[in-house]
């Protein structure tokens, strides 16, 4: 009994420490990513991007963060006050949980080792859309509501091929534990799952773009149609938290993509978290590249891509993988 109590206490402390570390990790990564996004956008448009605050504009996002924190938190008239302010938190909190089972490195660099890591991440990333839905509903604003409706339709649609492509990898490896999936892949690129299942990776990556509301699938916040979509009415850190959740969700899905398909922390020469971070940032760069290349799709096109192509393809892919697993 006493031993069990100590065991539980240790596990709880471990979880609390992990959550605090991940919050800091998210904060730092969001600061870096926002700057990276703007710098990358600048490069693609052949301009320098932010340049004035700090050397080469490196402190621009810090200045923006301070500005955002100093702003008034305004609740629009007629809004459901409780839901309105709960929504950013409900969007952000599940993203933190998503980092828990991610193995950043070979040893001890996992927040919480668990057998159902993939399921936990998929479940909690699905919860994020709930917060977006609440934000749109409680804002008492037509743009917010349309944005929220789009977000829900889009997330529901894109979760299916996402799950199916993840399932294909789980079939192949025979585990849902992210550490096991990572360990099953070798150091060199030809030993990674992406070589075995390139179609799964393609479906996974396109679905994550839809899942994280990234351009060209950023319809819930299409600024030319919906002002800012579901977060139109949010000011100051209310908007800031949504922003952080969006970028943190990008890090999560890129981490999952790295673990499932790109060998996680495995890499040439010395395995370690540096390879993990390099691959995650590589995927994030590709996401930005896509954003600054392709125009936003129309909503019917968005759903057509999913229901007519990605979902049948993912089903076929899963069938082939299941057959191969049985035969080989």
């Amino acid at each position: 009994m006493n031993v069990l109590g100590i065991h539980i206490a240790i596990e709880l402390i471990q979880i609390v420490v992990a959550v605090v570390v991940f919050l800091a990790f998210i904060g730092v990564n969001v600061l870096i990513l926002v700057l990276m996004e703007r710098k990358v956008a600048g490069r693609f448009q052949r301009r320098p991007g932010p340049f004035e605050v700090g050397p080469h504009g490196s402190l621009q996002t810090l200045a923006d963060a301070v500005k955002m924190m100093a702003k008034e938190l305004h609740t629009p008239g007629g809004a459901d006050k409780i839901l309105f302010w709960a929504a950013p938190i409900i969007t952000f909190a599940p993203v933190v949980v998503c980092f828990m089972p991610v193995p950043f490195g070979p040893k001890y660099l996992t927040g919480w080792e668990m057998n159902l890591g993939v399921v936990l991440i998929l479940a909690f990333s699905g919860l994020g859309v709930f917060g977006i839905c609440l934000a749109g509903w409680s804002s008492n604003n037509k743009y917010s509501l349309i944005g929220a409706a789009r977000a829900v339709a889009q997330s529901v649609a894109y979760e299916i091929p996402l799950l199916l492509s993840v399932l294909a990898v789980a079939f192949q490896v025979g585990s849902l534990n992210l550490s096991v999936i990572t360990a099953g892949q070798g150091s060199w690129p030809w030993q990674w799952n992406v070589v075995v299942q390139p179609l799964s990776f393609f479906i996974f990556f396109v679905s994550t773009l839809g899942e994280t509301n990234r351009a060209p699938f950023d319809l819930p916040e299409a600024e030319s149609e919906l002002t800012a979509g579901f977060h139109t009415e949010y000011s100051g850190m209310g908007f800031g938290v949504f922003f952080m959740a969006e970028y943190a969700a990008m890090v999560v899905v890129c981490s999952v993509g790295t673990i499932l398909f790109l060998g996680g922390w495995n890499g040439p020469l010395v395995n370690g978290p540096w390879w993990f971070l390099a691959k995650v940032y590589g995927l994030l760069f590709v996401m930005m590249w896509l954003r600054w290349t392709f125009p936003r799709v129309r909503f019917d096109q968005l759903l057509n891509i999913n229901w007519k192509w990605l979902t049948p393809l993912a089903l076929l892919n899963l069938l082939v993988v299941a057959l191969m697993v049985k035969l080989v």
Partner: protein
Amino acid sequence: MDRASAGLFGEVRKTLTGLWSLVVGLGVTGNQFYRRAVTVHYPRQTVDNLSTFRGPIELIPSAKDPMKPDCILCGMCEQSCPSGCIEVKSHFEEEPDAEEPKAQTPAGAASDPEKKAPPKKKKKTKVIDSFDLNFNLCSLCGLCVQSCPGSGLRFSHEAYLAGYSRSDFEFDLLARMRAKASGPGSAGSDSKR
């Protein structure tokens, strides 16, 4: 109904060519990524290709004396300005150049001063007092430059205008022209830093 006849095979082919076009698009932007930025860091760098830029109007100095404008003081610019931002002030001065023929006459023929002087009535010339432009009101339509019968006005190439108050943009064009003439370099040196 081309699509219906094409069937599933046609759809797949269309999608694959569409996918390839996306890859081509990525190539286009990817190519730009490695190139040098084409913009300049404004306060530290400025551009010098401003020869077609239409900045606030300026007086053209005369070829003989760069301190004097070519303006004939007809007032057409003032009249044609739809915003009323030009104000030209001048007065008549009696024969500033009537001295010269007088000075010549005593040397040439001293016998007939009364014969020549009375028909040559005292010539009056317009002399410029001030030429003010209120750039706050100017819409840069160019009617003043178009309506100028001589070659008195033109657009300057000053793109880098900034000030702290409205009064910073109430220009004394005469003073600006003289400052430019006596300042370092020729006209337009302001914009080419």
